[in-house]
């Protein structure tokens, strides 16, 4: 099923449910890993993933098709994950990066993290970045998303994204060299 066919089916009430199942099958893992890298904890990622798909289901009529469905869903997932982590930070009366670092410091005891020391160090380095740079770095470095697609998802120019990635990379390198 092409993306256009999928969108048409999603917007038709009689085929919505089956199309939504197909949507879940295609995107659940990709969106999960995208969310997981932002919120870090598995249970939090699970909550955000479910909320993301619920929003997609309820708002499919509002999808204007001026971007790809994939980009639209990534945007919703990104917003949901950032909102979640910001709310957590607000609740703890601290900065988002601090919340992420706190979670990362407990990561070695997490059943759902089997990374080695280098992976943990990289995650800590990413957590020191401003939110937008974190997003760009994760999407480019781990998911190899093209700047053109990233531009649609994050609604930022390709040039600004390239600059963000460059700066993020330098900061991470510096962190790793110094720690």
């Amino acid at each position: 099923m092409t993306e256009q066919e999928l969108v048409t089916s999603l917007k038709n009430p009689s085929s919505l449910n089956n199309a939504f199942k197909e949507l879940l099958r295609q995107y659940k893992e990709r969106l999960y890993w995208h969310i997981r890298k932002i919120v870090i904890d598995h249970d939090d990622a699970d909550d955000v993933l479910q909320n993301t798909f619920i929003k997609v289901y309820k708002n499919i009529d509002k999808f204007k098709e001026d971007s790809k469905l994939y980009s639209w869903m990534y945007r919703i997932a990104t917003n949901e994950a950032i909102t979640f982590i910001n709310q957590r930070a607000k609740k703890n009366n601290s900065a988002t990066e601090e919340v992420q670092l706190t979670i990362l410091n407990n990561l070695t005891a997490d059943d759902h993290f089997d990374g080695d020391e280098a992976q943990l160090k990289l995650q800590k380095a990413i957590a020191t970045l401003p939110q937008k740079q974190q997003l760009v770095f994760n999407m480019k470095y781990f998911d190899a998303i093209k700047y053109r697609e990233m531009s649609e998802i994050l609604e930022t120019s390709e040039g600004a994204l390239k600059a963000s990635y460059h700066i993020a990379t330098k900061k991470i390198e510096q962190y790793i060299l110094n720690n």
Partner: protein
Amino acid sequence: MNKNKKHIKTGFTTPDKYFNNFDKKLLNKLSIEESESELPKEAGFTTPENYFDNVEGEILNKVIPTKTKVIKLFNKKQFLYATSIAAILALSFFILNPSNLNLSTFDDIEYAAFEEYLNTEDLNISALELADLYEIETNELDNISFLNIEDENILEYLSEETTSDDYYDSEL
């Protein structure tokens, strides 16, 4: 050697201390590239077993309503029946419950009270109705033989029970 001095042959110059800094910059870049190449390409996060199989069902349950028709425990009609029956039972309890009348059995009704009731109330009961009340069939009345009643008994009854003069007056 003055590094800022124009090259004799070409005239090209270099920035101040360029060659002194070049080594440092090159080494720094190499170390960065080396460290970048050592960066892991995996984040190290894992999921519980069968997570992606289960999460699909969880999301579907939340967004797609099940087609099973929900049957209310009580619909409006049943509710009316139930309340009506309850009201009748409650009223019956207060009206018919002998304990509320302080009477344990029908035999406890005193004859005087019963007679008083019959005297004061205009019952207008006909003989047949009375017969029905006592479950006497009309043919049973027919079977009663008045011929067997002795004349003496009739005279005795009349002398004891009919004391009012009105009877005589009306007969006159």
